[in-house]
């Protein structure tokens, strides 16, 4: 007995369509509250400096100034988004303490009756800074004598005591020794700003019952709530986070960056507080997709089989790691590719520099690895004189093949997917490729 399908197979109107085309959809920043204060941030004007003092006296005299918040006002002044899943150490400061590590780092929050007054007060805060040498290149950051970015003394995130996330299968040097060709490549990508049209922001509102309602355009509502509770050292049930329509995110609104300080400001003033990034903050301060440098070295046989692959990757995490350690782990698991290679060695470094922190953006860790990997595959095809389809079919995972992280492939579908893709774009594949399947390799084909 089958029930009639109301949705599957039909075109369904989006529930938010009318709101969007009439402009009635309510976004976070469209809300106003009586008595609402405006929060603007005093930010580091330099890439790296010792912060010796903050002089608020002139700012305090600006008409409309209400109060400022500095590091000492924050109950637990550590912002470590991945601490929720056990990532250590706690390294980023909600408001800077004695050092700033990137241009734009938050130093002091200024609250005022109007946005203009807040901007004016921010302009009048004097910082006593001792500028320090800065580093912007991932490999330079790893050289001896490079400026040290983190407070614990290493410019790499540590994975179980190692400076990189490591993946090992077989013996990659032995593979290179047997190979007919060595194919090398280095791939660089730039940081990318997600650039949502609605900038990151929230409004924190004190309620009569002692709770705080936080209207936010975060993409990660419960991450935001939990981190805010940790930073403010309050039970989670005192916070009520209200999400809703997000005016574009693309990963750029995953970091929990505006809610804790806005909520703290609401607590300290007992007034609603609006903290919405300006466009330049969105571009210059909010996390970007990381810049990457990826080195490939592949040992390839004349028949196109890849028998050894060594990858060394560096992700530019910027001044703090945020979600990059996680991204690196995903990267290390994926950058070997959906290919069966018996000897693989992957070292993936999460590197600290004095750039603005990088974090989530659509497939982060994997996307840039795939770019490098697939260009490298084309390069291999060229070296051994095979077409790009053939090189991929030859090396594609099949059920039972061992992946670089030593798990056997199950439910492999790459071959079937490529066959379907070729058909869709009207590319005629040779009969031997069309005949292939993801079934386990026979003894004759040789296990991988």
């Amino acid at each position, binding site marked *: 007995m089958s029930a009639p399908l109301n949705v599957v197979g039909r075109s369904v109107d989006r529930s938010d369509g009318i709101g969007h085309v009439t402009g009635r959809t309510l976004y976070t920043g469209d809300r106003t509250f009586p008595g609402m204060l405006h929060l603007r941030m005093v930010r580091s*004007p330099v890439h790296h400096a010792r912060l010796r003092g903050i002089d608020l006296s002139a700012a305090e005299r600006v008409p409309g100034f209400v109060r400022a918040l500095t590091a000492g006002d924050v109950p637990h002044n550590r912002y470590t988004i991945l601490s929720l899943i056990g990532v250590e150490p706690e390294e980023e400061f909600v408001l800077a303490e004695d050092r700033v590590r990137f241009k734009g780092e938050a130093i002091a929050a200024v609250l005022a009756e109007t946005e203009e007054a807040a901007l004016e007060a921010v302009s009048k*805060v*004097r*910082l006593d*800074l001792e500028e320090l040498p800065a580093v912007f290149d991932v490999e330079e950051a790893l050289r001896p004598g490079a400026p040290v970015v983190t407070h614990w003394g290493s410019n790499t995130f540590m994975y179980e005591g190692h400076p990189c996330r490591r993946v090992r299968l077989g013996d990659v040097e032995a593979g290179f020794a047997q190979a007919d060709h060595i194919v090398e490549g280095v791939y660089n990508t730039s940081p990318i700003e997600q650039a949502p049209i609605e900038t990151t922001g929230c409004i924190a509102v004190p309620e009569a019952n002692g709770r705080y309602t936080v209207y936010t355009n975060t993409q990660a509502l419960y991450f935001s709530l939990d981190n805010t509770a940790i930073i403010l050292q309050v039970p989670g049930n005192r916070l009520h986070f209200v999400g809703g329509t997000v005016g574009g995110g693309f990963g750029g609104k995953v970091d929990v960056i505006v809610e804790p300080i806005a909520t703290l400001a609401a607590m300290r003033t007992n007034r609603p507080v609006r903290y919405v990034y300006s466009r*330049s903050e969105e571009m210059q301060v909010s996390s970007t997709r990381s810049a990457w440098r990826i080195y490939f070295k592949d040992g390839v046989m004349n028949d196109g089989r890849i028998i050894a692959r060594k990858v060394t990757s560096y992700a530019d995490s910027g001044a703090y790691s945020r979600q990059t350690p996680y991204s690196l782990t995903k990267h290390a698991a994926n950058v070997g590719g959906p290919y069966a290679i018996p000897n693989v060695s992957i070292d993936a470094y999460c590197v600290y520099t004095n750039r603005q922190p990088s974090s989530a953006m659509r497939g982060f860790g994997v996307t840039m690895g795939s770019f490098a990997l697939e260009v490298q595959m084309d390069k291999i095809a060229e070296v051994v004189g095979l077409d790009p389809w053939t090189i991929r079919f030859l090396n594609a995972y099949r059920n039972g093949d061992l992946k670089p992280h030593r798990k056997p492939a199950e439910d492999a579908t790459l071959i079937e997917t490529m066959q379907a893709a070729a058909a869709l774009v009207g590319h005629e594949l040779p009969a031997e490729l069309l005949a292939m399947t993801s079934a386990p390799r026979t003894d004759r084909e040789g296990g991988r």
Partner: protein
Amino acid sequence: MNVRGTRVLDAPREVVFEAVCDPDTLLAVIPGCHSIEQVSATEYRGQISVRLPGVVGTYRTTVRLVDADPPERGVLDGEVVGPLGSITGRATFRLAEADGRTVVEYDGQAVVDGPLARLDGRFVEGLAGSLIGQGLANLNARLEGQHDAPKETAR
């Protein structure tokens, strides 16, 4: 930010060095400068108005000669404070003799703070270079005794 440059002035370096240490001359040649006073043998304070596209403001300026080897070399510590923040730094200038003329070579580093720091570094450096260039051109004109042309502001 870093600013460096070179310019040839049509006067002997003793004259140039003296001019650089003379408040009246500085008032006349610094673009937008409308007051200057000598606080001590080595310190000046002045007011400079800057009118730029979209930006106006008057800046309190303090300059101290912290090291000098007349007429060859001087080191200046300076601070400029105004509505758009501050610029604090140190500059070295060298004067070299060349056929009765003087080659001025300057090199400075400064920390820019406040709203100014949020502009592209190119702007602040470009503007500083522009002001110094105009100032030296004005100085040259004055040293040649042709300083009656109307003083133009940076804009």
